């Protein structure tokens, strides 16, 4: 089965800009699902608002396009009602960590079995290039014409501290890596977070003079290093890629079932 068989092709060509990394993330995700051989009707994809959120319209799974930042909250409801389904929640950086920041940390804390994908392009693309909590100090944006002075969140550290039991990071340049991490994240029993650094040539690229999509992918290659590599050891300023957390802890739906059992015995 080809990746093209998992999409709603009546909505193609997709609406993302030329060279947008979000399309590559969709591509990697479909490949991961194809490799795992999961049936289309066993997947629920829930998304919020923003460029990233349009992803749920393109996939031929059960899909929900929900409120800004509330994709994880809606996904939690779906998972509690139908724990046998695979719930995948792609979100943008603003959707996941600004508008939905609270939902994000609490979903991590509960360790509910779903896969959160942070499609991190470090900007609000759909609304015209405002800076996000992942833009970081020195980033130029429409709302930061003299550069941003806000410190950025580190998605990996935040997810780990909040209690996510699978945390990984990669980029849209490292596609084979992205497919591998997404597969592991989907198979992981518990809350998985995969941050995929994505290029927005239209706003982030233009405002920060990063050039075309191709230039931005080359930039991702330069500024990141694989966990455990000599390259990363020698240059600690590089952004680490890899699997940071992979551990087994009690999962929320399983624990909830135990409560149901206990309550039914009374």
């Amino acid at each position: 089965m080809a990746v093209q068989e998992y999409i709603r092709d009546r909505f193609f060509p997709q609406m993302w800009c030329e060279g947008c990394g979000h399309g590559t993330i969709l591509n990697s995700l479909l490949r991961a699902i194809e490799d795992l051989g999961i049936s289309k009707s066993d997947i629920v994809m829930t998304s919020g608002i923003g460029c990233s959120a349009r992803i749920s319209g393109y996939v031929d799974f059960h899909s929900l396009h929900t409120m800004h930042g509330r994709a994880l909250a809606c996904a939690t409801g779906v998972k509690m009602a139908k724990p046998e389904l695979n719930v995948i929640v792609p979100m943008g950086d603003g959707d996941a960590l600004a508008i939905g920041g609270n939902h994000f940390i609490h979903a991590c804390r509960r360790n509910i079995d779903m896969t959160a994908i942070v499609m991190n392009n470090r900007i609000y693309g759909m609304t015209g290039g405002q800076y996000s909590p992942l833009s970081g100090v020195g980033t130029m944006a429409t709302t930061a014409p003299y550069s941003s002075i806000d410190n950025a969140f580190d998605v990996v550290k935040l997810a780990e501290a909040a209690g996510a039991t699978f945390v990984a990071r990669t980029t849209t340049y490292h596609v084979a890596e992205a497919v591998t991490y997404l597969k592991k994240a989907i198979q992981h029993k518990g809350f998985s977070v995969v941050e995929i650094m994505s290029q927005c040539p239209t706003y982030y690229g233009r405002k920060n003079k990063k050039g075309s999509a191709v230039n931005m992918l080359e930039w991702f290659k330069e500024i990141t290093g694989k966990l455990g590599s000599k390259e990363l050891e020698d240059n600690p300023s590089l952004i680490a890629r890899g699997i940071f957390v992979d551990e087994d802890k009690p999962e929320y739906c399983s624990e909830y079932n135990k409560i149901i059992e206990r309550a039914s015995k009374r």
Partner: protein
Amino acid sequence: MAKKKLKEIAINQSWCKGCGICVAFCPKNVLELNDEGCSTAVRPEDCILCKLCEMRCPDLAIRVIEEEEEV
């Protein structure tokens, strides 16, 4: 197992937006943008079936189709 060879690099020109990612990162320089700005396979004989173009394409416009080599 029989060796795989390239049957076709199928590019959906109506989905391709011409970002050039496939062209820039093809290790064998198989692809080029045509006059309409769409990706086309100009040197398919050099293709090593790594499928990096297919995997990186944001528009899901590329399919590297393989077939088994006749012995």
